[in-house]
């Protein structure tokens, strides 16, 4: 636990967090509260009339199989994006970290290159991937076709499209993970690794027994951030690459909230979905902090 800080003036701390609290209340709690209310209402898109309907919107949501499908898709999608971008980020960070000893200048260049994708807006990243992998226009489409041994067609084939959005979303997040992993790796005292090496521990042993445990706070933090990213921030990528298609294959929860609310103009259902998503995120965060954090070494 953090130690309690002491301020001379009792009100100063409240004043200092005030602006942030205001922002949180106006841009997070208020809309979230609105969504909670809207979930129990049926209203027309223009907001002229609304009617309280108890749990009708909830039961309507689970009437077809679409929502459950979307739910399962989202879980697989988030796990895949999280895993892929964490592993690639760690791999690149390890490379640059080792390189830092030998080729200082080139590693600076490498760092800049690896961080670059983070500066690209999701919609633009999506457009790039869409054009590169479009079955007819894409530069890389023919290459992929010859690797997988069948016609690469994310426009039509749900599995191809799903794979493509996972890849694009992970690529976008690798930079973020890279920066944190590199920082984490550089903070590990060299003396620890060196003494382990003298004791005869090989590179793999050193990595799994020293580096990884010491990195665990970073990993823990990144898992949370990556899951949140995969759940919410991948909207732009999906919107530009597949629009949730083909056949609903990439229709993850956050995209469904948008399409039901803004395209379908079914505000009640959209609100119900936001509430479920909200509950899911809250639950996930609680679990992570309560159980996973205990196994993390914070030094």
């Amino acid at each position, binding site marked *: 636990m953090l130690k309690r800080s002491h301020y001379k003036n009792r009100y100063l701390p409240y004043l200092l967090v005030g602006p942030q609290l205001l922002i949180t209340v106006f841009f997070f709690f208020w809309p979230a509260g609105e969504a909670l209310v809207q979930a129990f209402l049926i209203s*027309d898109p223009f907001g002229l009339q609304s009617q309280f309907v108890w749990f009708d919107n909830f039961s309507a949501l689970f009437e077809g199989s679409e929502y459950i499908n979307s739910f399962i898709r989202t879980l697989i999608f988030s796990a895949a994006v999280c895993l892929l971008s964490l592993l690639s980020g760690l791999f690149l960070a390890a490379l640059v970290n080792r390189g830092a000893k030998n080729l200082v200048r080139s590693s600076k260049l490498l760092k800049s290159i690896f961080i670059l994708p983070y500066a690209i807006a999701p919609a633009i990243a999506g457009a790039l991937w869409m054009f590169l992998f479009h079955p007819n226009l894409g530069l890389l489409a023919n290459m992929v076709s010859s690797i997988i041994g069948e016609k690469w067609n994310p426009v039509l084939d749900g599995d191809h499209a799903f794979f493509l959005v996972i890849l694009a979303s992970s690529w976008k997040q690798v930079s973020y993970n890279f920066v944190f992993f590199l920082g984490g790796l550089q903070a590990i005292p060299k003396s620890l690794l060196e003494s382990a090496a003298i004791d005869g521990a090989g590179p793999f042993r050193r990595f799994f027994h020293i580096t990884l445990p010491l990195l665990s706070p970073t990993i823990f933090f990144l898992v949370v951030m990556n899951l949140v990213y995969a759940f919410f921030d991948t909207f732009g990528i999906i919107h530009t690459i597949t629009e949730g298609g083909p056949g609903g294959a990439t229709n993850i929860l956050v995209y469904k909230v948008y399409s039901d609310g803004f395209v*379908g103009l079914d505000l009640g259902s959209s609100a119900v979905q936001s509430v479920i998503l909200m509950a899911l995120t809250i639950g996930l965060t609680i679990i992570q902090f309560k159980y996973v954090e205990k196994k993390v070494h914070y030094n």
Partner: protein
Amino acid sequence: MFKIILISTLICLPAWAQEKVTTINWWHAMNGSRNDIVKEMVKRYNDSQNKFKVKASEKGNYTETLNSSIAAFRAKKQPHLVQVFEVGTMTMMQSKVIYPVHQLFKDYKVAVDWSNYLQPVLSYYMTNDNKLLSMPFNSSTPIMYYNKNLLAKAGLKTPPKTWTELEQHTLKLKEAGVKCSLTSSWQSWILIENYSAIHNIPFASQGNGFASLTAKLNVDNEKVVNHIERLHRWAKDGRFSYQGRRGGPALNAFTAGKCALLFESSSGLSSVEKLAKFDWSAAPLPFEEGTKPLNSIIGGATLWVFKGHTKKEYEAVADFLRFLSTKEMQTWWHKKTGYLPITLDAYESLKKDGFYKKYPYQEVAIKQLTRATPNQATSRGIRLGSFTQIRDVINEELEKVWNNNISAKEAMANIVKRGNILLKNFHRRNR
């Protein structure tokens, strides 16, 4: 202090001076080159008189434009006119925020001869008792484009009239080594909605939804299932090629000379004119051997008038709408965009000027649209709630067919099942 007041008064003066001119706002979704045409249109109107002024703003695509105006209405800052696509008709109609056009024309004494309008265009936007709700703006209907060079390569002189002929054509094209015989854009609109209308098959019950909100989908009927099954067969041996949900990719495959035949909106004519570097033309959509085809149905958008403005402003709105349907504007609009002229006098004058002699493909759509009197139950149009989402469902299920995941019969059954849930929920929200 005095100086500040003086200056601010001077700044405000022009605004007071303009007070006499009534300004109305029009939000639309015509982007790219069409936005320039709209600007020109508005300029012509503003120059034609000095009482009213129209200010047009582009608000993104159709969905975005509708959402912007919904948000604006909630903030009590709605525009006077908004362009809404045909599938949003039910939403607008049910909304209680609109001023029906027939009422506006009556209240502001604009004399309109409705018999001068193309009936299949009007009927799509009328209430069940034939009152016009919104003003047709851009209307189009699907037609078949064909590449004359590729047809000649396969020894074919004329485009196919019927689906039986089309089958023969695609076989010959395939033998001649053409990789893609047929492709289509907007598959729900063209392959199912228009196919149903042309062959007098109800797409949904309750007169395609015009009569009541309790309508249910009817696309699992034998004729449509067989039709999709046939296309699936062609998709498997490469004669039919699916390029995606929207208009662009299919049109590009045609203009790049890859596909010999293309089903696409008549509004694609200007793009094909610009992009196709080969000999091409257009023909009506094919129909089944031994049937008498009805009119096809339209797509596009209309202009809706919002409630909550002053009398003076509505006078301006009524006058602007009158201006848009004059013969001069309609012929100009048709020539510039490829959208249909919506009045018969515009059509007649284009005929007289020899426009269709010079560009015969421009007349295909209007002829196909006027070849029959719309049947109230099948070919007057389709009016369903949540229609955008129903089209998405149709897209999803058809994609599963083209990808060999499910059969045509299963797909149509799924569409009916999923679509009816959407319809039921729309009804639940609009009781």
